[in-house]
């Protein structure tokens, strides 16, 4: 496949016009660093600048979504722009905007590098979900990882340093293992493009246990990013140590990016269901373990941040359920759940940040906050109810969709692992009720000493109110979002 130089330049130029939002983000990173040098005295300009950058990247999607609906390969098949990746990228940008809104309060602690790193993680996530090539997967995963190691330590405390060290050691081992897996896959297929037919044909022809081995090694990197169970121990430590906006960001953006690329990669690895190795079972077992370990460990937690860490592990289990279904519909429901997950997670974290700023750091200290900070407590309650998956919130609809797709997959293939996954998923939903409602229990049932009332009109409350309306709307009118998601065709 030798192309002339002009053809290659043309394809690169075409690619750049298609990747406008990634170009905006990359320019934004440089602008933020430059701005940090030039306007060090006026720190309030940085969040504004970062806000504008993400917003312009978001606006481009809305324009782009109407223009291109066929998948387009860019940069010689390195990236592919399609509906699936565009939808996830919109979610990332919304999460980025919400993160900036959360960090608005204490911008004193945030030099321009903070915003540059947030933009870098966003750029990595954008590229990761578009990647069709193992080289590109590696680079964008590392872009996310290396930036997040630094972001994890942004509290500038003893604990922050410890958290970021643990994150770093875990993360780099996982990515090294992943690269080794990629190298073996490359050796067996002779191509790095995992969407190409050569990749599938060669793997089908080999059919040795080495395929299974290499595939397992390669998925380690993704499982680490979504904090699925064998690769989860970093999450609680990092979540406890990092500042609140950063946790909210970590729990959404790298996780959804990892899930997005895992979905594509698994489809290729399972050779579209023709593989002798049952990848559906492997990921099903991982999902069962993730759900169970995440939920049961969360029961014992005293720190709300650690609680949310285990909650986010358990939630990746639910996202994995959508992947395990291995059907176009399963992916669509997974996208719906991802949207709901983004909203409810940010809702909880915004309230938790407010309580943290009032000096409430452990679950016992929430006693009586239901009276004192009534609005934040109510929003926290709604967020927790949504995370549990109870009506009338979008969390219920999301879980219902994900499990119904799993049920359909079970009826089609009759694999026992899918039934077990369903059983464990439902049982774990019950278990999660006990820890999710613990903070609201302390807030509303236990009485505190202070009777001071909270003013409703704070920026946090208004932002939470918007999220609450969204999450209720997703319960009463899920068709609005589903109509949009249904147009997304998932192809490899």
């Amino acid at each position, binding site marked *: 496949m030798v192309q002339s130089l002009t053809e290659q330049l043309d394809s690169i130029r075409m690619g750049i016009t298609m990747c406008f939002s990634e170009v905006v983000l990359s320019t934004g990173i440089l602008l933020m660093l430059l701005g940090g040098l030039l306007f060090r005295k006026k720190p309030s300009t940085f969040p504004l600048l970062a806000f504008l950058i993400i917003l312009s990247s978001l606006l481009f999607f809305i324009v782009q979504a109407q223009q291109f609906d066929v998948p387009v390969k860019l940069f010689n098949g390195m990236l592919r722009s399609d509906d699936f990746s565009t939808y996830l990228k919109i979610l990332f940008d919304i999460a980025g905007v919400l993160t900036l809104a959360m960090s608005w309060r204490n911008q004193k602690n945030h030099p321009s590098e903070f915003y540059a790193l947030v933009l870098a993680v966003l750029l990595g996530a954008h590229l990761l979900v578009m990647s069709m090539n193992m080289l590109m997967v590696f680079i964008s995963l590392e872009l996310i990882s290396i930036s997040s190691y*630094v972001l994890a330590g942004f509290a500038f405390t003893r604990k922050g340093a410890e958290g970021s060290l643990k994150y770093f050691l875990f993360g780099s081992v996982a990515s*090294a*293992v992943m690269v*080794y897996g990629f*190298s073996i896959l*490359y050796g067996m297929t002779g191509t790095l493009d995992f969407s190409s037919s050569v990749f599938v044909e060669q793997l089908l022809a080999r059919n040795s246990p080495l395929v299974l081995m290499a595939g397992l090694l390669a998925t380690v990197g993704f499982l680490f990013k979504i904090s699925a169970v064998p690769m989860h121990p970093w999450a609680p430590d990092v979540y406890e140590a990092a500042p609140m906006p950063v946790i909210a960001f970590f729990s959404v953006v790298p996780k959804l990016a990892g899930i997005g690329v895992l979905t594509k990669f698994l489809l290729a690895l399972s050779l579209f269901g023709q593989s002798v190795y049952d990848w559906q079972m492997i990921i099903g077992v991982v999902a069962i373990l993730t759900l169970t370990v995440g939920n049961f460990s969360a029961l014992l937690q005293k720190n709300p941040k650690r609680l949310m860490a285990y909650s986010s592990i358990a939630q990746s289990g639910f996202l994995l359920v959508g992947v395990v279904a291995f059907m176009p519909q399963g992916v669509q429901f997974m996208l719906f759940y991802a949207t709901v997950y983004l909203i409810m997670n940010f809702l909880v974290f915004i309230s938790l940040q407010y309580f943290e700023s009032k000096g409430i750091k452990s679950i016992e200290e929430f006693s009586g906050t239901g009276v004192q900070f009534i609005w934040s407590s109510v929003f926290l309650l709604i967020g927790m109810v949504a995370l549990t998956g109870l009506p009338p919130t979008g969390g219920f609809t999301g879980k219902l969709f994900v499990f119904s797709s799993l049920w359909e997959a079970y009826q089609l293939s009759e694999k026992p692992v899918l039934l077990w996954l369903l059983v464990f998923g439902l049982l774990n939903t019950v278990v999660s009720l006990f820890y999710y409602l613990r903070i609201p229990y302390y807030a509303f049932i236990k009485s505190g000493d202070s009777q001071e009332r909270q003013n409703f009109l704070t920026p946090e409350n208004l932002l939470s109110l918007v999220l609450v309306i969204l999450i209720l709307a997703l319960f009463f009118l899920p068709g609005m979002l589903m109509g949009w998601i249904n147009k997304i065709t998932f192809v490899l």
Partner: protein
Amino acid sequence: MAPIDHFLYLSAFLFSAGIVVVIVKRNAIMVLLGIELMLNAANLNLVAFNILQPGLFTGHMFALFVIVVAVCEAAVGLAIVLRVYQHYQTSIPDEIQDLKE
């Protein structure tokens, strides 16, 4: 076509050695060294497998990128270890136990 078996044996050995170093050594700097070994095992694989594809440089390209990324990772990692050392006067993760349930 040249036989590439011995390259693969060497890379498998390097990878296992890297994993052993990561697990056994307690110092964060030594763990970093083990990670470097694992990445180089992957590099060796990539370059060796590229022999099977004459005329293409995909494996070489990947190896180059892995080297560059490994350098970035080491730079960030050493900075983090330095920060930890300032706070705890040690670079042994086992002795740093502030984050516990």
